[in-house]
């Protein structure tokens, strides 16, 4: 039997424990907290993504049904199109984001939306906006000298019933 130093054994056990703890944390979060793993849902050609017929030809918010929306967002240096979206409180919005040029990031603060935006791929995630307010969306992958100017906002407006 190979001799393993006592301290080495401790470190090996510790690292295995940390791995197991992370796996359990990810599993718990994905199952119980409903955290979604952003995935590639579609491939597009960045050169033709804005041509007529593509939903990114007129990016923006589309109402699927009352309280349910989809937002097609185009990322390019150094702007999101559109850079402002308005939805009523209680809305569920599915974001379809793609890039026309380089790799970007798409994060909406105080929500579960946090994904990479890669040219040629469409990233999709859904968020529910219950609380009225302004949610900032930022690019969080360095994309060039104007990276820090690449942001927008989601304005969640109080519903008429709540306002009354």
């Amino acid at each position: 039997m190979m001799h393993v130093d006592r301290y080495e054994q401790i470190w090996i056990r510790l690292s295995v424990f940390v791995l197991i703890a992370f796996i359990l944390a990810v599993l718990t979060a994905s199952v119980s907290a409903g955290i979604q793993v952003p995935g590639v849902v579609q491939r597009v050609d960045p050169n033709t993504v804005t041509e007529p017929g593509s939903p990114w030809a007129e990016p923006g918010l589309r109402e699927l049904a009352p309280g349910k929306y989809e937002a097609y967002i185009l990322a390019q240096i150094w702007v999101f199109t559109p850079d402002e979206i308005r939805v009523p409180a209680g809305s569920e919005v599915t974001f379809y984001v793609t890039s026309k040029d380089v790799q970007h990031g798409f994060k909406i603060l105080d929500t579960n939306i946090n994904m990479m935006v890669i040219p040629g791929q469409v990233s999709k995630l859904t968020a529910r906006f219950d609380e009225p307010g302004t949610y900032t969306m930022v690019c969080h992958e360095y994309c060039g000298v104007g990276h820090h100017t690449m942001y927008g906002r989601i304005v969640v407006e109080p519903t008429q019933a709540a306002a009354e």
Partner: protein
Amino acid sequence: MATVSVPGPTSESAHRTSGRRRFRRGGRGTWALLLVAVPVLAVLLFVIFRPILVLPRIGPAPGFVLTDAQGHPVSHEDFRGKVTVYTVATTDCTDACAETYALLRRLAAQTGQETWPAPVELVTVYLDSATPEQLRQVAAQVDVDPSRWRLLSGDPRSLKYLVGGGFELYYREGPAGRIEFEPGLVLVDGVGVLRAMYRGSLPSSQEVLRDLETLMAEIQNSKGWTRYAYEAAHLFLCYP
């Protein structure tokens, strides 16, 4: 100065005993390692080689009550036990609907020949709140076999909740009051679960048939012990 100790008979015996203990400990460690490694390896091989293919369980299909071409109410419950292919159209559309009808005709012909464990039903939902009379006219124009292909419509609110909210197919009323929509196709299994959604454009009939064959294989084979293998396949499938 280094000292060299020569083990005597007593220390040699103690050394052997300690070696056996270490061996037993090592044996337990090896078994424990195997106990973890074998399932992990099995899972990895299962995920990499995908011996069982399944369509994802996207979510529960929306409920609805619409009206058919005979004026009878039709609900989602009427399609229990059947695999249902939903498409959308309007009574006044031409090119986009011609493509949909051609696809449905091919599917009706090809699925009618198969001996599958569950029947396949084709449903087209008309987004312009068509009357039964209008649906009958369309059925006559496109030569629909009513036993395989149902034409349904309803009030705007029910249609919006079903097609927009449930199937996530976007449509809107255009400036001239005409419905503008993107073609799409949705596959729902016999227990009312969404299994495939094609949005924005129509898939080819080969793609739909491939999905139907995958679903039918699951319905047929997912029994007894193999059911757990199918459940495992769902567990390791990254749903979109």
